[in-house]
């Protein structure tokens, strides 16, 4: 298998959205007809189709869609691509009826449910998208990616507490993934729950290596809690009740600082100096 095909497979595997790269890799292969003989041909066609509509290359997308339909005439998976191309050329109503038809044939069709939600989101109907996604999650509560998507929708509308609830669901299902603890830590900080933010940042440190965001987070929150405790007036919006003892906070801030200084030894002069000034302020 050529290296381009390998790279395309890697991108499919990682679910990254890199339409420009996909097209760059695939177009020479398609032009020399190097795809059709491979086992993954139709996976590649689907992948390039999706990238093509992302990059507004509608004619290419149409050509690939015809290939796919010829091979899989009754497929719902291909039908949803018809929905997507309609979305891309600005026919959301057609797209919507395609997805609705798909759900009539198969009410559990996840692809159609998700495209309908994506349609609502793209049309700016965030509240409706939230409602649909919440309904979807009622029956598919193990879909942690959907919980994550719901969290993002809530964050867009500045509904941080609801977003945090979604992250909690994600973390229940994926407790070892530091990325989710990181998002949750930042949500907690943004909501003023500093004690929980600190705990979660420490969890990120535990679960990853040299994570700059986490070290910054520990230092930032430890300093903030110390500063708040030194004030006589309590700020009701900020929650520090479960925070560690002062001695522990000092130690945590110190450890975070040490780790940051070590990482910044690789940085350039300007960013390093600025970071060091920040650490000492």
């Amino acid at each position, binding site marked *: 298998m050529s290296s381009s095909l390998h790279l395309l497979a890697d991108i499919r595997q990682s679910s990254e959205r890199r339409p*420009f790269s996909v097209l760059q890799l695939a177009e020479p292969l398609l032009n020399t007809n190097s795809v059709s003989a491979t086992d993954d041909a139709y996976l590649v066609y689907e992948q390039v189709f999706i990238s093509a509509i992302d990059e507004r290359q509608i004619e290419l997308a149409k050509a690939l869609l015809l290939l796919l339909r010829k091979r899989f005439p009754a497929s719902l998976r291909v039908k949803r691509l018809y929905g997507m191309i309609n979305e891309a050329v600005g026919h959301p109503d057609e797209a919507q009826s395609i997805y609705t038809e798909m759900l009539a044939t198969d009410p559990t069709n996840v692809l159609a449910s998700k495209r309908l939600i994506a349609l609502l989101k793209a049309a*700016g109907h965030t509240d409706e998208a939230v409602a649909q996604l919440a309904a979807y999650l009622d029956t598919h509560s193990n879909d942690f990616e959907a919980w994550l998507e719901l969290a993002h929708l809530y*964050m*867009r*509308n*500045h509904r*941080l507490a609801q977003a945090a609830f979604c992250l909690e669901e994600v973390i229940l299902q994926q407790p070892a993934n530091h990325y989710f603890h990181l*998002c949750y*830590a*930042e*949500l907690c*900080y*943004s909501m003023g729950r500093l004690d929980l*933010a600190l705990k979660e940042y420490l969890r990120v440190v535990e679960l990853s290596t040299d994570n*700059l*965001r986490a070290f*910054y*987070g520990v230092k*930032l*929150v430890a300093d903030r809690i110390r500063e708040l405790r030194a004030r006589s007036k309590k700020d009701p919006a900020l929650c520090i009740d479960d925070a560690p003892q002062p001695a522990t906070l000092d130690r945590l801030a110190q450890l975070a600082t040490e780790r940051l200084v070590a*990482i*910044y030894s*690789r*940085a*350039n002069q*300007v*960013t390093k100096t*600025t*970071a060091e*000034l*920040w650490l000492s*302020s």
Partner: protein
Amino acid sequence: HQDGKTRYVDAIPLAHTWPQLTPMFDVAVQQASIYAQSKQLSIGGYYVAYEDPADIQLSASSALLATALLAAGDRVVAFVIDAQQLTPESTRPGLIPFIGGDSQWKEQPGAFGEGKGSAFRLENNQVLGVAQRLVAERAETAIHDFDEHLDDVTLDWLQNPLLNERIRTA
């Protein structure tokens, strides 16, 4: 600030992931402030571009972030990027300024207008053309914000020298 006017001479990109969340914003702004002072500058504003190009109102999250900046500096303006003005046909800068007051941020009407009284002006009339060209060339891949710096500490998010070079030679 010499003639009572504020000149915006530089911009520092902060984040593109979780832009509504505040901890790394706080760290970045504090460091940007330190950097600015080292250049005898201060933070004069905040810019934001939304996922949907038709979205040109300052969101609730953005207003909160901009308000946090007000605590640090005196005259802070929040700019929303109007991406639809970044086409070659456009003759307007595609920046919509919002001025903060009390607890609200209001759009400044007629900001980059033709008349003498317009509150905002581009000092360099080549900027629009350069910006449009750079957008067409996908120069955004040369921008390294604080988010990216957090993933790779060797990236210079404060100065972005490679991008500056592209701007200079565009």
